[in-house]
């Protein structure tokens, strides 16, 4: 065999560049809400859905308590729960709460504290289609089942007589990572469709039917919808709002088409709050009743341990979470989240007080 002097050189260059980019591929976004002189560091990780709110809270709260520095990493509910169970963080964040088996793995005890609520919206990218896109509940289930796969499907045209829908393929965009947003969305789909319940089912991670594109994190899905024509994907309301993506009006349980918004979200949560709140605050709202209710809403939880070895950490965390549950709620509303109904906020504040 002959030798190639260039081979090794190029191979080295390739190796080096691959190595460099592999390092650059990781994205870390530790958001620090405190000041440089902060001496107590409290870190958390989890759901991407409330991440912008938590970051805003940390910034605002950091002005009042510069001695404590908080950080929160949006890594998805699945990973957040995993790190929380492993004890790698001081608190976790999850839109799917935690299952009983997961709670049983934490010897220090678990407190599920609902901090805010949000809507899962269906954002789409259809240039040239102006106006409100209405999706009947059987249709959006079938879009994600891959049964409705063209924008000019007769059922879509019938529901939207005022729109000129293009003759394009529908490209669904979904979450790849374990996600509370996926849980809320599939929990809703299972509640409205038997085909869904017996098919893909409910979970934080789903084997999606059809040729769905996958993205990592709410921002990943939002970005993929933004760059893909004819696509539709589910994400938290704020992410669609920030990227300026149009969102569909969905048919609720009462048969009305409702646009996501503070009013429709609050109406849905009020209906859930009126029903009795479970002891552990793990309240899911798969399909809220009421003519004004937006159909897909979910609470987002902070995961706190029952006991913290350092008393000052526990005290700082309790003070901060209590602040978020009360003074923090108006900030949530400004950012497109749904403020907690009073009875949920009160129950959550009581649960925080029990932490040692």
């Amino acid at each position, binding site marked *: 065999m002959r030798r190639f002097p260039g081979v090794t050189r*190029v191979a080295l260059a*390739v190796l080096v560049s691959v190595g460099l980019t592999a390092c650059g*591929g990781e994205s870390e976004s530790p958001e620090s809400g405190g000041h440089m002189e902060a001496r107590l560091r409290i870190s958390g990780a989890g759901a991407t859905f409330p991440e912008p709110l938590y970051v805003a809270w940390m910034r605002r709260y950091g002005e009042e308590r510069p001695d404590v520095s908080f950080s929160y990493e949006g890594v998805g509910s699945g990973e957040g729960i995993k790190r929380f169970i492993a004890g790698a963080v001081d608190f976790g964040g999850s839109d799917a709460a935690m299952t009983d088996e997961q709670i049983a793995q934490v010897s220090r005890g678990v407190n599920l504290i609902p901090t805010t609520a949000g809507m899962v919206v269906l954002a789409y990218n259809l240039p040239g289609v102006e106006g409100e896109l209405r999706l009947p509940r059987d249709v959006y289930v079938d879009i994600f089942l891959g049964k409705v796969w063209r924008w000019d499907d007769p059922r879509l045209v019938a529901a939207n007589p005022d729109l000129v829908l293009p003759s394009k*393929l529908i490209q669904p965009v979904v979450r*790849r990572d374990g996600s509370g947003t996926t849980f809320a969305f599939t929990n809703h789909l299972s509640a409205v469709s038997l085909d869904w319940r017996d098919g893909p089912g409910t979970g934080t991670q789903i084997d999606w039917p059809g*040729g769905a594109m996958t993205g990592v994190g709410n921002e990943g899905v939002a970005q*993929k919808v933004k760059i893909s024509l004819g696509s539709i994907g589910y994400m938290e309301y704020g992410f669609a709002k920030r990227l300026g993506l149009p969102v569909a009006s969905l048919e609720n349980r009462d048969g009305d088409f409702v646009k996501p918004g503070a009013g429709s979200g609050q109406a849905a949560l009020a209906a859930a709050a009126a029903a009795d709140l479970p002891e552990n605050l793990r309240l899911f709202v798969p399909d809220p009743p009421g003519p004004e209710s937006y159909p897909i809403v979910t609470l987002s939880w902070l995961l706190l341990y029952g006991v913290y070895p350092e008393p000052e950490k526990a005290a700082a965390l309790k003070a901060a979470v209590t602040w978020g549950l009360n003074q923090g709620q108006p900030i949530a509303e400004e950012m497109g989240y749904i403020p907690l109904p009073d009875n949920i906020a009160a129950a959550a504040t009581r649960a925080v007080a029990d932490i040692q």
Partner: protein
Amino acid sequence: MASNPFKNAASASTVSGPPSGGDYLADSVFRTVALTCAALIVVLILYILWEIGGLAVPAMAQHGLGFVSGTSWNVSQEEFGVLPEIWGTLYSSLLALVLGGVFGVAIAIFLTQDFIHARLAAVFRTIVELLAAIPSVVYGLWGIYVVIPLLRPGAEWLHQHLGFIPLFGTELSGPGLAPAALVLAIMILPTVAAISVDAFRRIPYKVKEAAYGMGTTRWEAILKVMLPTASSGILAALVLGFGRALGETMALAMLIGNSNQINLSLFAPANTLASLLASSFPEAGQVEVQALMYAAVVLLVITLIVNIAGLAIQQYTVRKFEGKT
């Protein structure tokens, strides 16, 4: 060093002396270091195989060969299959190899066969090699914001007019196989071009003179004499390029759409083994990690097969075109 064997063989009556102790020492140290480095590469590869294979063993035992032919990746049901990813990996890499190979070899011909001044050729070559230094994240971003919008009108036209051909069976909505393969082709271009240039350079000038002397035109000389003579080097370039395309991760994870499906269409989103690993690994549970390790083994095996096949073809061409055995 006392045991310098050249000392005894030295004759006292010549001006040339035996290598000094320093020379001998430097030589033997270099030999040892080089041998150690070479051995370490082998050890490193074996260690990686052992480590990954060890982690993959539970998944191998559980899923067996069904893993390679399965099409679903269902973490909650613990059903894992990587056929769509194998398909996407090979499809995107082959497309990239065809595009990158044609352009890479064309560039090599252009730079070495007296089309331009040698100095200008050196400048061009440096620029082409600079492509290798661009981080793949940048390639990914460039693909998203430049290549996809650029391809879209053409893809739309092809789908509308030739949609009955499975290759154009879907629209290009955004990320998909075509932009991924195109960017991949540009990424392997410097590898293919640089090594092909070396292959052409190694042909003695006499060969070309002889061809011209027999009355060939310039293109006859290039296509019938130079290209076959350089073929083993060019094949090595293609094999390396293909290997790089198989393993490329970041740009593909950004551009291919990460969709778990097997579709002939150039414009449909797909997935590759490397991008499956990259996007699933950060938060995979224990069972999924084992499955991902199995997927990594599959990728290694594919790369190995490609390299062995490349080597075999190369040796065949050496025999056939260069007259060596």
